[in-house]
């Protein structure tokens, strides 16, 4: 019996689980259940090709798709104190961090980078929901401040992709203090006259929504993203009633006047380029794929871009 439970069964299980997803070539859409081939899914930015459901995308993959030629430079974020409260719930906070680092391969829940998007120089920040629920602790606060400072130094707009369950409880009050800290970062941009565009992705909730994620000059959300302060479960418990369909989803917020736009991820880059260039008073971007920055000989976007804007003046 022991031999069977301890040896044979795990072996059988492992053979079968391996056969289920051979090297993770296929993944199942959370929305419609369709099996999607990994390359196809990646090309479509983790949006289901069958039902359009938006699955999570890592900040790194997002930046690769956002920046021209997939080229960007990471901006260093000042390191905060490790585990300032010596927080311990069922696990120690440093152990939770270690686990999150191991599964994501990232250092923390936000990635900041600079580069060009449709030949428009920008700074971008993206929050990583897979890293402890994207939670906002001191590192995320520092990342947003670093992003804003860099944008002000370079006189570039900041585009921020939010995704978080809220504040990082393991940093207690210091996570809460990221609400005013990140608000100061947003004010730096506003005072420098630079656009601050927020893209709210699934899910953006709690203290994150109640600070930098709702203070954008333009507020865009991905389809069906949950965006709220108090989560639906908390509200259902408080009110003791069922909430309407689509409550706190991007489209619902758009209807209630809380967002400017809801835009599918596959169209987001073009839209961000359009909006950013208009806010900066730049001519329209050239349509189509652009070569990587530096390969200026291959195309002359300046010339191409000038034509339409100059034409009416003549």
């Amino acid at each position: 019996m022991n031999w069977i439970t301890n040896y044979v069964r795990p072996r059988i299980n492992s053979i079968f689980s391996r056969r289920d997803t051979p090297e993770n070539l296929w993944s199942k859409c959370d929305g419609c259940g369709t099996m999607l081939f990994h390359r196809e899914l990646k090309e479509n930015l983790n949006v289901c090709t069958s039902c359009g459901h938006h699955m999570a995308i890592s900040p790194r993959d997002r930046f690769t798709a956002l920046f021209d030629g997939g080229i960007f430079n990471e901006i260093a974020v000042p390191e905060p104190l490790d585990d300032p409260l010596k927080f311990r719930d069922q696990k120690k906070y440093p152990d939770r961090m270690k686990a999150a680092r191991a599964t994501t391969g990232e250092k923390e829940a936000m990635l900041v980078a600079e580069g060009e998007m449709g030949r428009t120089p920008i700074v971008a920040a993206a929050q990583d929901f897979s890293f402890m629920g994207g939670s906002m602790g001191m590192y995320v606060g520092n990342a947003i401040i670093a992003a804003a400072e860099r944008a002000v130094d370079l006189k570039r707009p900041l585009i921020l992709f939010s995704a978080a369950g809220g504040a990082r409880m393991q940093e207690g009050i210091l996570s809460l203090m990221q609400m005013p800290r990140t608000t100061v970062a947003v004010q730096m941009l506003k005072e420098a006259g630079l656009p601050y565009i927020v893209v709210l992705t699934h899910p953006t909730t709690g203290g994150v929504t109640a600070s930098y994620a709702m203070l954008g000059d333009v507020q865009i959300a991905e389809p069906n993203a949950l965006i709220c302060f108090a989560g639906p479960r908390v509200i259902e418990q408080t009110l003791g009633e069922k909430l309407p369909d689509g409550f706190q989803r991007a489209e619902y917020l758009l209807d209630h006047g809380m967002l400017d736009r809801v835009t599918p991820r596959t169209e987001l880059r073009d839209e961000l380029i359009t909006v950013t260039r208009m806010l900066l008073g730049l001519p329209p971007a050239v349509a189509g794929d652009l070569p990587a920055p530096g390969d200026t000989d291959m195309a002359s976007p300046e010339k191409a871009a000038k034509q339409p804007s100059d034409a009416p003046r003549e």
Partner: protein
Amino acid sequence: MTNYLDFEKPLAEIEGKAEELRAMARANEEMDVESEAAALDKKAAELLKELYGKLTPWRKCQVARHPERPHCRDYIKTLFTEYTPLAGDRNFADDHAVMGGLARFNDTPVMVIGHEKGHDTKSRILHNFGMARPEGYRKAVRLMDLADRFGLPLITLVDTAGAYPGKGAEERGQSEAIARSTEKCLQIGVPLISVIIGEGGSGGAVAFATADRVAMLEHSIYSVISPEGCASILWKDSEKMREAAEALRLTAQDLEKLGVTDRIIREPMGGAHRDRASTIDAVGAAIASMLAELDGRSPKKLIKDRRKKFLDLGSKGLAA
């Protein structure tokens, strides 16, 4: 005293006995119980000192939420003159969870804003137990703006379990309203003093407490999440609130070490509710002294220093 907290039960017994003796003596004039009652009083005082000398974080939460603790309206009534409430967000409604208006503090015109929880069933419902909706924060933003334009120092009194988690509140942009209120706190060129008089609950508190000086009453709390909420998420058991309260470091004493609060205002032995008048006086003295610290600073400097204060937060842990 009618409301005893669970950990005060032994105290309730002793105080009850003393009261009983005195009641008997009042009914029967020949009885002399004073020495016995006085002994009980002494015992009660000792016990009170023992209990309150080492309040655990969870007990502090209970004291901070004590129904008889002085609330915003009590402070406004005692510490301010010519209080003239101003209402409404000019958009949707007037939120009674937030009260505020023009008033004089030591004869100087100021703006005062605070969360009001209510003191009996009727007023608690009216004030929604101190849990503000977006209209409350938008009203606050309006008053902060007014204070800024007319150079009136702003005093905020924080006492909320958190922003109201309701359907309408969400539909009308609870998160945006809180974000705008915090943003406004960082923009105004007048002295901004905040006192956490009871509960400083999460974003709903930050929206008012992003201030030049933040003071906390000795047994008040300020936290990213309620201990019950934290316990149910991290321990998967809301009964673990004692552990969560411990881990969150939400007491005034820990927050002073972390640099989040600038001063602690002593409470009378046994908590603010045991001597409301002296608590209110102590808060008044603290406000006066904090205002004096900021006296004469230019709007530009106030804003710059306030932002720097928050940017620098978190550089020291508890050990430092």
